[in-house]
C-alpha cells in the first residue's frame, strides 16, 4: 500500500517537473507564454496536493497537522493573489523581489527546523541544510534591500573596503558552516549567529549596487532561491524540488547574464558597482545651454511630421504615463503621422518592463521596435520624442571612453531630424552622468511630468 502511495507521489513529481520545463520553454515565446505560466502553475498545484495527501514516512504514517497546512496555504493564497492583483504595473520589479524574498525565507525556515531533526553524523544532510539556510537567508535579506531600493526607501551606500568586508564576512559564514556541520552537537548559538551573519551579508551585498542595476540583482537572487530550493530537494530526496530549483538556478543565472549583456557590462562590473563609484565626478562638466520648446511648438512639430518615434524610459513608468502616451499616438495617427516606439532592452527598471507597460495601455505589439530595428529607422524619422529616458540615448556610450556607460549599445536618436526630450528636470539619469544629447542644436527640451506634458500635448494636437 505504502509503496503504491509513494509511487503515485513520484509520478506526480515527475509530472510537475515536466510542467516546469515546458512552462519555462513556453514562457520564452510570446505566443505561448501565458499558457506556459498556467501549465507550470497546474504542475505546482499537483505537486503541492500530492505532497499533502501522499507523503508517507518509513512507518507508513502520513503527514500530520493537515488543518494547519491548509490554513497556511489558504491565507498565503489570499494574500498572494490580492497583492499580485492590486500591484501597479510600474511596481512590478519590487513585487517580484518581494515574492523572491518570501521564497528565500521559506528555505531558511525549513533549514532551522530540519537541523534539529538531523543526527550529527548525517554529514550529507547537514551540508544540504546549511547550504539551503545560507543561500535562502542571503536571498531573503538581499531581496528585501532590493525591494527597499526600488520603492525608494533607501539609496545606494558605498563605503571604503566594502569588497574586503564582504569577502571577509563570506569567509566567516563558510567557516562557521563547517563548524556546524562537523561538530558533534548542534549548538543553537552558532546557528543563530550564522543566520545573523547571512542576513548581514545579504544586506551588504545589495546595498552598494546602483538602483538601476536592481533587475540584474533580483534575477541573480532569484537563481539563488532556486538553488536553495534544490538544496531542500536534495535533503528530502524530492525530485520536484530538486529539478524545479536547479532549473530556476541555471535559467536564472543565464537570464542574469543576458541582462548584463544587454547593458554591455559584465556581471562583476554590475556587482562591484562601477556606476555608483563614478557618480559625482562628471556631473558638473562644461556645457552650452539647453533649448526649451513650448508645448504648442512641440505639438506643431509632431503634427506636421511624417514619422515620429517615441522613446520611453523610466520617467514614463514613474509618471504612470503609458495611457497618455497611447493617447498621443492615436492623436498623431489621426493626423496621418506614423508613430512607432523604440524600446531599448534595458529601458525602465527591468528588461521588457516597457513592453509590459505599453501593452497594458493597448499599444499595438508591432509598433514596439527593438533597438537594432529602431536604429535603422532614426535616419528617416522627423521627430523623436524621448519620454523620461536618459542613459539609453546618451551618445557618451559611443564617444566618451571615460564614461561609465561607454560601450553600452544605445538608441541613436541623434540621427533623426529633431529630438524633443521630456524630463522632469536637468538632473542626471541613474548612471549619474550628463547627457550631451540635451545640448545638441537639434534637441529641444520639454520639462515637466511625463503624464501632464503628454495630456497637454494631446489636447494641443487635437486643437491644431
Amino acid at each position, binding site marked *: 500500500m505504502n509503496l503504491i502511495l509513494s509511487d503515485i507521489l513520484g509520478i506526480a513529481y515527475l509530472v510537475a517537473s515536466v510542467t*516546469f520545463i515546458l512552462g519555462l520553454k513556453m514562457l520564452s515565446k510570446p505566443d505561448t507564454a501565458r499558457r506556459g505560466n498556467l501549465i507550470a502553475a497546474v504542475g505546482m498545484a499537483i505537486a503541492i496536493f500530492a505532497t499533502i495527501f501522499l507523503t508517507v514516512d518509513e512507518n507508513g504514517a502520513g503527514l500530520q497537522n493537515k488543518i494547519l497546512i491548509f490554513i497556511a496555504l489558504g491565507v498565503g493564497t489570499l494574500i498572494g493573489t490580492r497583492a499580485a492583483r492590486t500591484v501597479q504595473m510600474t511596481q512590478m520589479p519590487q513585487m517580484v523581489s518581494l515574492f523572491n524574498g518570501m521564497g528565500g525565507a521559506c528555505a531558511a525556515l525549513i533549514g532551522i*527546523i530540519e537541523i534539529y531533526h538531523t543526527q550529527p553524523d548525517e554529514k550529507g544532510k547537514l551540508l544540504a541544510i546549511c547550504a539551503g539556510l545560507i543561500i535562502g537567508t542571503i536571498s531573503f535579506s538581499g531581496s528585501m534591500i532590493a525591494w527597499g531600493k526600488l520603492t525608494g526607501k533607501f539609496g545606494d551606500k558605498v563605503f571604503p573596503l566594502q569588497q574586503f568586508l564582504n569577502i571577509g564576512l563570506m569567509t566567516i559564514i563558510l567557516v562557521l558552516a563547517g563548524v556546524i556541520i562537523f561538530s558533534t552537537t548542534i549548538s543553537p548559538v552558532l546557528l543563530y549567529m550564522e543566520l545573523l551573519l547571512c542576513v548581514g551579508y545579504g544586506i551588504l551585498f545589495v546595498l552598494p549596487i546602483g538602483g538601476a542595476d536592481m533587475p540584474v540583482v533580483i534575477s541573480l537572487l532569484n537563481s539563488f532561491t532556486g538553488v536553495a530550493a534544490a538544496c531542500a530537494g536534495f535533503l528530502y530526496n524530492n525530485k520536484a524540488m530538486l529539478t524545479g530549483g536547479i532549473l530556476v538556478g541555471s535559467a536564472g543565472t543565464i537570464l542574469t547574464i543576458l541582462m548584463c549583456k544587454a547593458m554591455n557590462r559584465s556581471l562583476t562590473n554590475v556587482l562591484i558597482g562601477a556606476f555608483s563609484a563614478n557618480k559625482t565626478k562628471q556631473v558638473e562638466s562644461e556645457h552650452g545651454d539647453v533649448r526649451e520648446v513650448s508645448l504648442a511648438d512641440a505639438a506643431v512639430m509632431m503634427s506636421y511630421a511624417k514619422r515620429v518615434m517615441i522613446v520611453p524610459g523610466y520617467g514614463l513608468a514613474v509618471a504612470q504615463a503609458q495611457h497618455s502616451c497611447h493617447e498621443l499616438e492615436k492623436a498623431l495617427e489621426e493626423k496621418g503621422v506614423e508613430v512607432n516606439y523604440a524600446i531599448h532592452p534595458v529601458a525602465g527598471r527591468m528588461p521588457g518592463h516597457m513592453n509590459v507597460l505599453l501593452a497594458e495601455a493597448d499599444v499595438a505589439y508591432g509598433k514596439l521596435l527593438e533597438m537594432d530595428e529602431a536604429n535603422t529607422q532614426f535616419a528617416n524619422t522627423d521627430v523623436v520624442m524621448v519620454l523620461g529616458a536618459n542613459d539609453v540615448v546618451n551618445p557618451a556610450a559611443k564617444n566618451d571612453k571615460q564614461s561609465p556607460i561607454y560601450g553600452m549599445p544605445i538608441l541613436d536618436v541623434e540621427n533623426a531630424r529633431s529630438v524633443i526630450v521630456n524630463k522632469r528636470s536637468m538632473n542626471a539619469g541613474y548612471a549619474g552622468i550628463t547627457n550631451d544629447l540635451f545640448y545638441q542644436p537639434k534637441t529641444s527640451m520639454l520639462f515637466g511630468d511625463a503624464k501632464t506634458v503628454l495630456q497637454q500635448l494631446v489636447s494641443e494636437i487635437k486643437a491644431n
Partner: protein
Amino acid sequence: MDHLFEFLSHQMFLQTVYVVVLMVFLGIEVISHVPSILHTPLMSGANAIHGVIVIGAIIVLGKVDISNIPAILIGFTAVLLGTLNVVGGFVVTDRMLEMFKKKK
C-alpha cells in the same frame, strides 16, 4: 549490510548529481533564445517556480509534533511564505502576460 547501505546511498547520490547536471544544461537551453521583451515575465515565472520550496515547508510542518509550539510556528510561517511566493509569482506573471495578449 553496512556495505549494501553505503552502496545504495552512494548510488542515490550519483543519481541526484546526474539529475542536477542535466537540469543545469536544460535550464540554459530553455532560456537562451528568449527575446528581451519577455525577460521580465520570464524572471517572474521562474520566481514562481522556485516557490516549489513550499513542498519542503509542507513536509516540515506535517512532521512537527503539535506540542512543539515554536517549531509549529516556524513551519506555519514557512508554508505561508512559500505559498505567497508560488501564488503571487504565478498571478503576477499571468497579469503581465495578459497585457501582451490583449493588443493582438
